[in-house]
């Protein structure tokens, strides 16, 4: 069974603080996606990483794929209330399957 465990599960911080969310697995993935989901809505794609060690930046968000392609992290610099939401990682193995395996999610609350 392929599992993606995210930590922490919940995170409450003040505006301006930095934070890191982790996504870990014992399986190797060919790509890893990060999504953000608002209550009652669908996941919105933030980024895709495919190369071991790859780092991608999206404004104040920095995403990294582990060297072995088993884990990933999301770092937010100077968090803002607008960053509040559920962050999901999702891994995929291309070839004989392209389904996304979703992580357990990290719920972030940023207080002004």
């Amino acid at each position, binding site marked *: 069974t392929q599992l993606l465990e995210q930590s922490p599960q919940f995170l409450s911080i003040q505006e301006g603080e930095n934070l890191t969310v982790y996504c870990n697995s014992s399986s190797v993935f*060919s*790509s890893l*996606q990060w*999504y953000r989901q608002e209550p*009652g*809505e*669908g*996941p*919105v*794609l933030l980024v*895709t990483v*495919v190369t071991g060690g790859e780092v991608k930046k999206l404004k104040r968000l920095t995403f990294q794929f582990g060297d072995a392609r088993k884990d990933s992290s999301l770092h937010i610099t100077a968090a803002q209330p607008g960053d509040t939401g559920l962050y*999901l990682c*999702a891994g*995929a193995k*291309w070839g004989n*399957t*392209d*389904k*996304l*395996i*979703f*992580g*357990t*999610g990290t719920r972030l609350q940023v207080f002004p």
Partner: protein
Amino acid sequence: EPEVTQTPSHQVTQMGQEVILRCVPISNHLYFYWYRQILGQKVEFLVSFYNNEISEKSEIFDDQFSVERPDGSNFTLKIRSTKLEDSAMYFCASREEFRGPYNEQFFGPGTRLTVL
């Protein structure tokens, strides 16, 4: 910006009834998916569809479920006889042509199915 749309946004049905959830994927996309999310749980894969046939399905996707692309734009999920445990958010997703490891699936807003 192109987006995946889903209707209805909320469906309430009685146990044992048939429901059809509808999705309009992004127009130039070729791969289509259904996922579900039971309240408070992870998003789970149900089925993938390509070239007018199912390419993969999960254990959840039993004989009560079926998918169809009846025309060039719609992609539907049918549940023949709903059970209480089918209550969940159902998400449709689509992806453009095969691009190796890049598996960027774009999700619709979801249909909340409530089975009474």
